[in-house]
């Protein structure tokens, strides 16, 4: 046990200050955080669906959950059921074999639902395009609120996108 405690103490707290990619972002983060509290009560819960990605985007979504980005510190949590989710995070392209599962996951969510499409493939099918097997972007199957481009988008971009979608969603839904 002492080894574990020593390792924890030695590594300390790795969580970095909120994203600084955008100079205005630092002050904005707190406002967005307040937005999350206002719109959703306590927190934002996210259900992730891989609708056909190469799994590169999943690696970066995992990274968003590491101590450096400390997603849970924002009150944001990934949940196992769409019924518990405020936001659907979808990586693409949407394969035809996954279209039905994606639609059903979306349908199972309570309103208001936010949908964020991740990556170039989630945007428009990316390098895989549209074919007998591939529908293309996520918007072909469900309404998308925000797209985070990249191949794959880096964790900081995903974090920024999630926060932006919360704000955009607020504008869209009358309260």
């Amino acid at each position, binding site marked *: 046990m002492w*080894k574990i405690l020593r390792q924890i103490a030695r590594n300390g707290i790795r969580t970095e200050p909120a994203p600084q990619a955008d100079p205005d972002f630092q002050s904005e983060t707190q406002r967005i955080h307040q937005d999350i509290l206002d719109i959703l009560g306590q927190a934002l819960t996210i259900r992730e669906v891989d609708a056909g990605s190469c799994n590169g985007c999943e690696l970066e979504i995992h990274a968003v*959950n590491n101590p450096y980005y400390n997603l849970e510190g924002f009150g944001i949590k990934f949940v196992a059921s769409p019924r518990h989710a405020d936001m659907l995070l979808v990586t693409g392209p949407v*394969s*035809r*074999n996954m279209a039905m599962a994606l639609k059903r996951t979306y349908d199972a969510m309570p309103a208001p639902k936010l949908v964020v499409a991740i990556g170039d493939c989630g945007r428009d099918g990316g390098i895989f395009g549209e074919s007998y*097997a591939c529908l293309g972007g996520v918007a072909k199957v469900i309404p998308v609120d925000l797209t985070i481009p990249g191949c794959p988008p880096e964790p900081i971009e995903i974090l920024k996108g999630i926060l932006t979608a919360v704000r955009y969603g607020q504008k869209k839904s009358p309260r």
Partner: protein
Amino acid sequence: MHLPGLKLDLKGLPAPIPLSRGMVDAADWSAAALAVAECGGRLVALWGSDRRQGETGNFVISAAYAMQDGMIWLDLPLTGAQSGYPDISGIFSFAGRMQRATADLLGIHAENAADTRPWLNHGAWPVEHFPLRREVNGAACFDGRSLKDYPFVRVEGDGVHEIAVGPVHAGIIEPGHFRFSVVGEKVLRLEERLGYKHKGIEKRFEQLPASEGHRLAGRVSGDSTVAYAWAYCMALESAWNLQIPARASWLRALMLERERVANHLGDLGALGNDAAFSFGLAQFMCLKEDWLRLNKELFGHRFMMDKIIPGGVDVPLDAPLDAPGLARLVAQCELVEREVHQLRSIYDNHAGLQDRFITTGRVVPELAKQLGLTGFAARASGISHDLRVDFPISPYRELGVKAAFHRSGDVAARAKVRFEEILESLRLIRRMASGLPDGEQRVNPDKEMPAGFGAGRIEGWRGEIFVALEIGASDQGEQGNRILRCHCHDPSWQNWPVLEYAVIGNIVPDFPLINKSFNLSYSGPDL
């Protein structure tokens, strides 16, 4: 290279790893499979191609076998109206799914195969539509079709019930369906249904010029992007008989080892987490994040996507990848090595963790051999194949690789192999960074290169990645040579069926742990 008892006309391809290619007839197709199995060889991949050209040419079924002294690539042309070929799933059980996938994509069948259920076609396109046939337009789409039910094998008996999981899983993982037949919490049987991520990659290749194929290959399975891009480029360079500069192959290997370390770090953390030891996840994910950030700084991409290109590498020739940059690589390896030793000692001494790891998800060496287990998982089950050791190309030839090797075949053994492979890769990265040859790191292929066949084999972190490539003649225009056929093979083809055996007799809550200890790709074999 030859097979005992068979007179085959094999011709060597100019590849860094010995490889011979030849034609067989239907009788020799099965005889060859049997001969390979008898002399300890393995089936690596099985795929079909459409080589019809007007009235001539045929559908062709191909198999790639790994032998002691290299690889044999056999083509069986289906003559006349023949659309069947002899089933070899009785000899190599995992060939069954590859044969079913070939039937879905090309309409050629393994004759008298026991299992003829569709594999990739879930009903999203008509059964009489064979996307890989020449006459089929890649842009053809079928909207509004509903998916079909799949006849899972039912287990009958007192108290037996089914648990259906997926395709959307509870965590952030790829989609696939698992059908468990259980009594209480004990698993009697697991049946996998995959193919949800089928994106039509093989058809997409045919729309790309050969010089662009590495980008698509690098997205067959994102966690192995370096291995796939290298295997593709090796295949292309073999078809074109192109020699790459020494510096390029050193940098390729450097990136491949960095990819291996990144994946093992992440999975060791996730293994801790799946056994309720979230400390492990936090610690390993920090190490992985540092690792990926240095990738971004030095190579320009966190996963080094599109950094291996035909003819060499596309990374900075000087800063940030200059002497101080390489020194940072070495320093990071030393730091990570210290941390990994520390974490390993914590994992090894944690009674609760070891209780979950030891004897869980066991694949004993005999079963592993029989089922054709491959990659690092095989090295945890007493099978010592590693391309970096068996057929070392530069720089592995110069540096030497010590493969990890364990026999107990459980989650604990797979974790041990991962720890050992991290340490060996750290050693290799240090040697590569300090001994990196000077000079060019890319040769530019001509606009018009010859048509022909090529193959590439790379030991990715998960196992052997194999790419078989057929390049067409140059169109004398902007596009250059086209890809006639590109088959990318993921080691998960072999290992998914083994997972079905590994969970038998285990309890359902141990499935995520067992699954993660293999961490197989869905996207890779779904193509």
